[in-house]
């Protein structure tokens, strides 16, 4: 049956998927539910995650045709094999594996010998399009806190309520996700008028039509366009006017990262956000204020447990950045903003405070400089990293002893500042042209 219908299916890119992977997809036919798992050497954690996915599908979607698709970036620790094991054939299911009404397919493909998030997402989207999946979820291989409920929380709004994108909200430690709370969330909110807490989501769900539209519109052959594809996906859904909602997934596990991870993280998120502003200028330039979007569960919960944070080092790196990168900042920032930054960076400045207003001005001037390509765009993103450290220093100081409500209040105040100063962004954006 499925084979007979396949010629109607439009191949996203005939040269992209491997023959073997295509053959496996043809054997699957069509599915209702698809769960994509991008991996690279995740053998330590992937077993539990795939188990939870499998249990979630069997529990909440027992009658639906389902498949797990693994897009692997050249693992050498047996990760793909662990995922493929999750397949359940209904003939064998009664003996050693959980009983299922339908075959649960689990397929793995290696898209490259090195990991690339954009290509992994593209592989999953292509598979979803070929299998004509109605609802798809992407689960991060680092989400060890996953429960079976995640599957219904993410997929049910797509499958039954016709939403197009379900983004997560988490319970985080107050010191975690500072780039999200201090830049991505408030700026996305100010630009597009939607209170999306996690514009950069690694666990999310989407409809088949949104997946196909993003697959068709994105410049996949451009390496730079592939950076931050998750952020781009969210922004494409906003720009396309798709139905978006948020679902609470529980506690976000704290992941320790090396300081070198900040710049790649900024490329994937801030770079993608700044890049998206050009094609959607007509949309965001007319928006004022913001509206809440439908949310299941808490929008944001906070863990207040004490955490050792070396704020001194953050300030030092900010001060060094201001001193060493003056020539770079002269190309990006206005003289007044640079002077204010130099003033707060002075060592004799005992009460260091990177105020909301100054931070918003900084970010907006960076966005405008990115738009005008005053220097290499990648260098603009890299130059923002030391300033972000200064802002993180202030944010941590302001919220070190506060309650969850205080943290939320401070984040809300910053969001309102981003919204209030939006005309400044437009002025800088259009200035000099």
């Amino acid at each position: 049956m499925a084979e007979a219908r396949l010629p109607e299916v439009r191949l996203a890119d005939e040269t992209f998927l491997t023959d073997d992977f295509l053959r496996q997809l043809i054997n699957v036919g069509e599915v209702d539910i698809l769960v994509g798992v991008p991996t690279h050497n995740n053998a330590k954690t992937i077993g539990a995650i795939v188990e939870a996915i499998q249990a979630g599908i069997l529990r909440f979607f027992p009658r639906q045709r389902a498949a797990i698709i693994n897009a692997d970036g050249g693992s050498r620790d047996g990760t793909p094999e662990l995922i493929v094991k999750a397949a359940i054939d209904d003939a064998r299911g009664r003996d050693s594996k959980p009983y299922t009404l339908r075959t649960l397919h689990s397929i793995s493909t290696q898209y490259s010998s090195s990991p690339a998030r954009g290509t992994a997402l593209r592989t999953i989207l292509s598979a979803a399009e070929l299998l004509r999946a109605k609802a798809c979820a992407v689960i991060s291989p680092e989400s060890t806190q996953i429960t079976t409920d995640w599957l219904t929380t993410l997929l049910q709004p797509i499958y039954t309520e016709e939403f197009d994108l379900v983004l997560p909200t988490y319970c985080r430690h107050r010191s975690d996700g500072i780039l999200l709370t201090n830049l991505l969330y408030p700026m996305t909110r100010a630009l597009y008028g939607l209170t999306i807490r996690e514009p950069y989501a690694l666990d999310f769900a989407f409809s088949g039509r949104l997946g196909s539209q993003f697959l068709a519109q994105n410049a996949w052959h451009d390496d730079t366009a592939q950076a931050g594809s998750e952020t781009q996906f969210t922004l494409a859904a906003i720009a396309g006017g798709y139905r978006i909602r948020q679902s609470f997934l529980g506690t976000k596990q704290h992941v320790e990262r090396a300081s070198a991870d900040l710049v790649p993280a900024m490329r994937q998120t801030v770079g993608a956000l700044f890049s998206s502003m050009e094609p959607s200028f007509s949309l965001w330039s007319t928006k004022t204020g913001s509206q809440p979007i439908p949310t299941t569960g808490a929008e944001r919960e906070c863990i207040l447990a004490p955490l050792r944070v070396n704020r001194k080092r953050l300030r030092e790196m900010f001060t060094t950045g201001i001193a060493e990168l003056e020539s770079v900042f002269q190309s990006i920032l206005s003289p007044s903003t640079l002077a204010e930054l130099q003033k707060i960076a002075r060592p004799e400045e005992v009460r260091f405070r990177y105020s909301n207003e100054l931070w918003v001005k900084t970010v907006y001037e960076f966005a405008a400089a990115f738009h005008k390509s005053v220097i290499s765009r990648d260098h603009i993103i890299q130059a923002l990293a030391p300033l972000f450290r200064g802002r993180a220093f202030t944010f941590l100081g302001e919220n070190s002893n506060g309650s969850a409500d205080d943290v939320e209040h401070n984040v809300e105040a910053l969001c309102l500042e981003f919204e209030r100063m939006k005309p400044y962004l437009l002025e800088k954006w259009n200035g000099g042209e």
Partner: protein
Amino acid sequence: MESEVIMREMIISELTQAMQELTRGFAHILPRIIVLVIIAFAGWVVAYFLKVFLRSILRLIKFDKLSESAGASALLTKAALPTATELLSRFAFWVAWLGFILLGVSVLGIFGLQEQIAKFFLFLPHLIVALCIMFFGLLAASFFSRAALLAAVNANLPSPRLLSVSVRSIIIIFVLSMVFEEVGVAEQTMLVAFGIAFGALMLGLAIAFGTGGKDLAQQFLEKRFGRGKKDEGKEDELSPL
């Protein structure tokens, strides 16, 4: 008396002959001078339009911006020179006009000059290539030195500016040696000078890294091969996302 008459006739004859030769020579050179003036005038018109055209194109492609990011604009400002667009337009004007003038001069048929003019025209492509190498070299030096500076600041390495200046210096030395080789000025000297400067720089960096930065090298190698303390290099338990 007779000898005086003969002498006078000889003088008159010589003078007449000289005058005739002068007149012939003048008659011979005058049309060529007129042609030279016409060619020079036509050349001026062509060069002027070339300047205007080039200036418009450079403004259209925002060449000044490119020159600014290459660091060339800063050099020009320091030397009290006009903008890169204006400078390049003027350069094109003078090269074109000079080319026409030399073409006109060659019409005069002055012995030895034609060879020099031919040499000039053969040298012109080398000069243009050398200027291109210089410009793109400065662009590359600016880009890579800034990349090194940003990477060093974000990695919290000591003396980021020194690293950046070193990168810029190496590239500029390399570019200058290429430029001199292209224009054929002191090729051997430049080659030797480049070899000595580059070798000295590398040796200096190696010694500096090996002695002054042995702790840094140890940290780097431990981090690189995974035998260092796991806590080092952490973002103070902060996760930006």
